[in-house]
């Protein structure tokens, strides 16, 4: 590793938040507004937009997991879509083959993804940076033919079609609203889980691993243990997102989880902002909306616009949209001074 890359990495780590009382108030205020809005939104929006926001939440949960791995533990994964797929398929197979009530599929999907993440994490975490990225990429690619191979279980290339969860009558909610609230509860739950995880000793250990592996080791952090754990948690969150995805879309097939999904997810979290809690939400919005925006701009070749937009965002906000938002806000009070 060269000197210059070392300094780059240092600057890339998000600066530690200095919690002044005012800032904390701001933060809680903003969060409260956000939550109120999130609860209010499905009663105001057309069902289609409710569905879109539901998918944003699903992607946000998956990105939360990726953020844990990439943003907080500093490990690159190009195979996050594979764990998303594992969660989605676990839920689908349990609902289809075992007729398990859908809420029960979520913990099972989480557990399966966690265990597979742990199993793959033990060898994978001996690799660093680029090599880990490529091995995870290979996992994502390999999963597609593997899903087709076990046709009796997975439905092969035709996939599995499932009935979507129906809202209980007492709620008076429409299907889209019900699914939205499920996704919202899962998203809020996982965000709280990750936030408290990061504040704990584990979070500090992960940051130490990211910022300086050698120093962390010297300080007595069991590197491989925490890295593997981060990988497994990240997989678990992807699995949770995957199971909610299955409820919302009602269909899984190998073509739903190609390597493009993994690459979109990684692009999403980098664009959203690594290491920040709002990064996954912004990334989810990016993954969900930017492809359609690209098509609105140029329907002859949407990819041309999508590619340019990714590059443009990285120019404007090299540390992601969360960082950009932060910088913009920071500038406002400064002018007043």
């Amino acid at each position, binding site marked *: 590793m060269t000197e210059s890359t070392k300094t780059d990495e240092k600057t890339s780590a998000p600066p530690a938040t200095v919690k002044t009382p005012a800032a904390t108030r701001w933060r809680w205020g903003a969060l409260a507004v956000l939550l109120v809005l999130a609860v209010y939104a499905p009663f105001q929006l057309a069902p289609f937009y409710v569905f879109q926001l539901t998918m944003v939440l699903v992607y946000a949960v998956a990105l939360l997991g990726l953020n844990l791995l990439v943003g907080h533990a500093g490990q690159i994964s190009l195979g996050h879509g594979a764990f998303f797929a594992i969660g989605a398929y676990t839920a689908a197979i349990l609902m289809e083959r075992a007729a398990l009530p859908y809420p029960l599929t979520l913990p099972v999907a989480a557990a399966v993804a966690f265990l597979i993440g742990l199993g793959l994490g033990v060898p994978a975490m001996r690799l660093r940076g680029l090599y880990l990225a490529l091995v995870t990429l290979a996992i994502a690619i390999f999963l597609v033919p593997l899903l087709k191979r076990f046709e009796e279980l997975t439905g092969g290339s035709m996939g599995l079609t499932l009935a979507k969860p129906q809202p209980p009558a007492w709620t008076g909610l429409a299907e889209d609203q019900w699914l939205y609230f499920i996704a919202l509860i899962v998203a809020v739950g996982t965000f709280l889980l990750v936030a408290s995880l990061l504040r704990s000793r584990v979070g500090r250990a992960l940051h130490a691993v990211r910022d300086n592996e050698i120093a962390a080791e010297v300080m007595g952090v069991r590197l491989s243990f925490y890295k593997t754990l981060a990988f497994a948690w990240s997989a678990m969150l992807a699995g949770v997102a995957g199971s909610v995805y299955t409820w919302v879309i009602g269909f899984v097939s190998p073509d739903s989880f190609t390597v493009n999904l993994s690459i979109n997810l990684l692009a999403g979290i980098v664009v959203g902002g690594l290491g920040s809690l709002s990064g996954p939400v912004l990334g989810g919005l990016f993954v969900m909306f930017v492809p359609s925006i690209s098509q609105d701009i140029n329907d002859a070749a949407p990819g041309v616009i999508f590619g340019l937009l990714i*590059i443009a965002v*990285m120019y404007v906000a090299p540390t992601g949209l969360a960082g950009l938002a932060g910088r913009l806000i920071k500038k406002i009070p400064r002018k007043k001074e």
Partner: protein
Amino acid sequence: MAGFLQQIVTGLGAGAIYASLALALVLIYQFTGIVNFAQGELAMFSTYIAWTLVAAGVSFWLALVITLVVSFAGGMLIERIVIRPVEGAPELTIVIVTVGLFIFVNAAAGWIWTFLIKDFPNPFPGGALELGAVTVNFSTLGVLGVVGLVMGLLYLLFQHTKIGLGMRAVATNPASARLVGIRVGWTLALGWGLAATVGAVSGVLVAPLLFLEPNMMAGVLIYAFAAATLGGFDSPVGAVIGGLIVGVAETLAGAYVGFIGSDLKIGVPLLIILAVLLLRPQGLFGRAAVERA
């Protein structure tokens, strides 16, 4: 036995294709520590330039020369315009920029040239060499020969020229390279130009065998990654040998291991990579120090 040898030859043919692109990947990685996801797409785009020239009546060899020159300039231009603005940003940001470039170039090629597959002239004779019961296509030999030649030229460039020395210096320690007076920015651009040129050679070699279309290199890229990982991301020789091993291994596994079959043979490079990396994380020919990202 003849069947087995034939499988190996088939594997070498595929491996040579992977190796040619892996060579370009390794070049960029050496200089910048970046895995350029758009490398294959740039190669595809270069090949379309050559195709357009040939279709316009330019002779194949002249078209090739023009394409290599244009690719070199294009590679440098991309470094200056696309990569330079995010220089100094976290590596992951740059990787994502190359992903954006991948999507952009792929879509642009489809937009300009449509998705119809195109015939690309084969510089090598169409026949085959009969060695006993084994058939070796001349095009396989040609690809292997050109890949070897490119590798040799790169070796000469790096080990025996001043520019090459400067490039190696930038690759190992850019800050220090600046202090001895090397214009690092231009050297990096040179590296991109060189990688784009090698990529163009790869595209021109691959196109007659895979047919030219915008997704021609996307499948090859994955195997080129595997080849580079196997050989070591900082070793051009390793990339080529890695490519050949990957090609042979997946072909043999697909043919002889019943459970794997044709559908799961893509898992073979995965297993090889995993095994190699666990035993020797820097790859077969890489240097331990280079594990940088």
